[in-house]
């Protein structure tokens, strides 16, 4: 049991024989050295309560008949450090990480299980290592999924909520600060004195503005007229609010351009077959219809004959 250790000092006699410590022990008085082995076996349990791994190491060392100086020489430590480890005197030891290293080396020397001893030694106070990490060393793919995703999930739902609210607080507020939201701003656009309306199927590049415009027009055409600079000049419209000034019904696709009395363009686009186009404004209107045969024009409810104004299929006329 004792004689199998290669590093033990030259005297490999059984410990019943107290001779080796006396011969080797420059540091120890013979009396102390003589007593040591018995002490260790007798007082090991009470010491382990106080010193833990230190006592075990000491007991193992003494069983092998070694002195602290031997351990110190082999590990290149100073003897007081070895004694401090055995006595569990943390105040005389360097940072915990070193001490754990010493204990491992010491345990290897006297043939003890290093992990167990290091676990016993636990001065967490001056240890800069944070709480033990269960994953250290272990590469655990499963853990990739668990905890942080739950956290991320909560965060995610919270953020989605915020986004929904932000959207609901209407696009106009955000749209002002983020150019990517909408390029056209229905609020900022100056209110024109006239209204165009394309009824079904409504081509709507910007759904929101289109819908708004439609609403204002259908529910209160007078409002549009009021905002016009010379609304009073057209009392007829006041009487029959349903009728628009001009109404184009497209049987086939045709270009239509309408200018008002001031020469401003009220409309200029291709109307598609089946659509109806209402235009209100101040006359006299200058109208060009690219394909007169495919369009029926009403002026204040009355059908306008396009034939007389048509040349090569294109109708050009002025209406008052």
């Amino acid at each position, binding site marked *: 049991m004792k004689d199998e250790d290669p590093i033990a000092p030259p005297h490999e006699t059984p410990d019943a024989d107290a001779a080796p410590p006396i011969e080797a022990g420059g540091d120890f008085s013979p009396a102390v050295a003589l007593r040591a082995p018995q002490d260790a076996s007798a007082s090991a349990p009470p010491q382990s309560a106080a010193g833990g791994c230190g006592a075990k190491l000491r007991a193992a060392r003494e069983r092998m008949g070694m002195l602290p100086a031997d351990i110190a020489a082999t590990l290149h430590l100073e003897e007081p450090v070895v004694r401090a480890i055995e006595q569990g005197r943390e105040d005389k030891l360097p940072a915990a*990480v070193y001490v754990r290293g010493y204990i491992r080396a010491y345990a290897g020397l006297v043939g003890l299980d290093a992990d167990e001893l290091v676990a016993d030694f636990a001065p967490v106070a001056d240890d*800069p290592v944070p709480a033990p990490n*269960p994953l250290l060393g272990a590469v655990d793919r499963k853990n990739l999924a668990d*905890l*942080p995703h739950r956290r991320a999930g909560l965060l995610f739902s919270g953020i989605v909520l915020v986004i929904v609210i932000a959207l609901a607080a209407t696009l106009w507020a955000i749209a002002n600060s983020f150019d990517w939201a909408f390029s056209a701003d229905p609020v900022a656009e100056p209110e024109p004195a006239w209204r165009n309306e394309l009824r079904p199927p409504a081509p709507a590049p910007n759904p929101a503005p289109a819908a708004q415009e439609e609403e204002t027009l259908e529910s209160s055409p007078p409002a549009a007229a009021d905002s016009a600079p010379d609304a009073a000049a057209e009392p007829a419209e006041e009487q029959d609010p349903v009728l628009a000034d001009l109404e184009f019904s497209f049987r086939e696709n045709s270009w239509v351009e309408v200018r008002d009395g001031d020469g401003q363009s009220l409309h200029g686009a291709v109307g598609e077959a089946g659509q109806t186009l209402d235009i209100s404004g101040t006359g006299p209107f200058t109208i060009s219809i690219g394909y007169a045969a495919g369009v029926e024009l009403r002026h204040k409810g009355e059908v306008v004959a396009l034939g007389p104004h048509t040349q090569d299929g294109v109708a050009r006329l002025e209406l008052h």
Partner: protein
Amino acid sequence: MFNQFRGVFARDLAIDLGTANTLIYAQRQGIILNEPSVVAYRIKRGQNHRVIAVGADAKRMLGRTPTNITAIRPLKDGVIAEFDVTREMLQHFIGKVHERSFLRPSPRVIVSVPCRSTAVERKAILQSARDSGARDVRLIEEPMAAALGAGLPVHEAVGTLVVDIGGGTTEVAVLSLSGVVHADTVRVGGDRFDESVVNFVRRTHGTMIGEAIAETIKRDIGVAYEQKDPRELKVRGHNLQLGVPRMFTLNSNDVLEALRDPLTMIVQSVKNALEATPPELSADIAETGMVLTGGGALLKDLDVLLAEETGVPVIVAEDPLTCVARGGGKALDAFDAYQDILWSE
């Protein structure tokens, strides 16, 4: 701003971009990825390379690929040898640890670099990490990360000697007050140990063995100090004379003989570091000892060898393989407190 928003979903990462293995530490989770730094890609004439495997999958292809597929280690001797491939590998790994993310991840990343890496190499790594989607990239010097990971008191005015033996390089550094006092990089590491074993077996047994077998030999019976009771291992190799596979036996002391050269280089580098250390710090080190980290620290009795050669106590850090990644992780956890040791442009 949008990046910060995406950052909410990303896990901050510390990456130990090593020659042999890449380790990734995620905040509050520990090491979540440990894969070989190997990339396999297909070569097509007139086209860009297409990466077909990264990490463990690619490592299996090393030495077993047809001509149009190449499996390489993009890092050599601790520095980036293949910039584009390294970037692809980083992207792959960062993406892999964020596999289930809804948005493209945008984590904060700390990458460890060798002390002696040049500014160009550092910028290359910074750029690689940024290109792979990181929001904020910092670099930490490997010995510093290793010391943090080992739990050493790097912030104190006490000298600390760290020897980090990685796959490609061995970093020897004296640290004090969160700074590097002296650093030296030797291009010797686990890979060189394996090569030495291969060469030794060819020389003494006339037999070829692969690097994977050499690694097994090193791991199972490798030692750094003469053993009284050497262990043996039966090995199969390709006999050069007969041209057929043959079985032979190696023991620990044979391996020690094989490893003598690289070990001497490491010992010499440690001695140089001790020599170059100012006396005050030298006294600290002589008292408390040096700390071994990295995979090479697992070589049996390396601590005994170094202690014998230098007369300084040597301790092996706990879980030495992951020290650098864990140290980077510690810097992540206290990002602001560690600002002084993190490097960015």
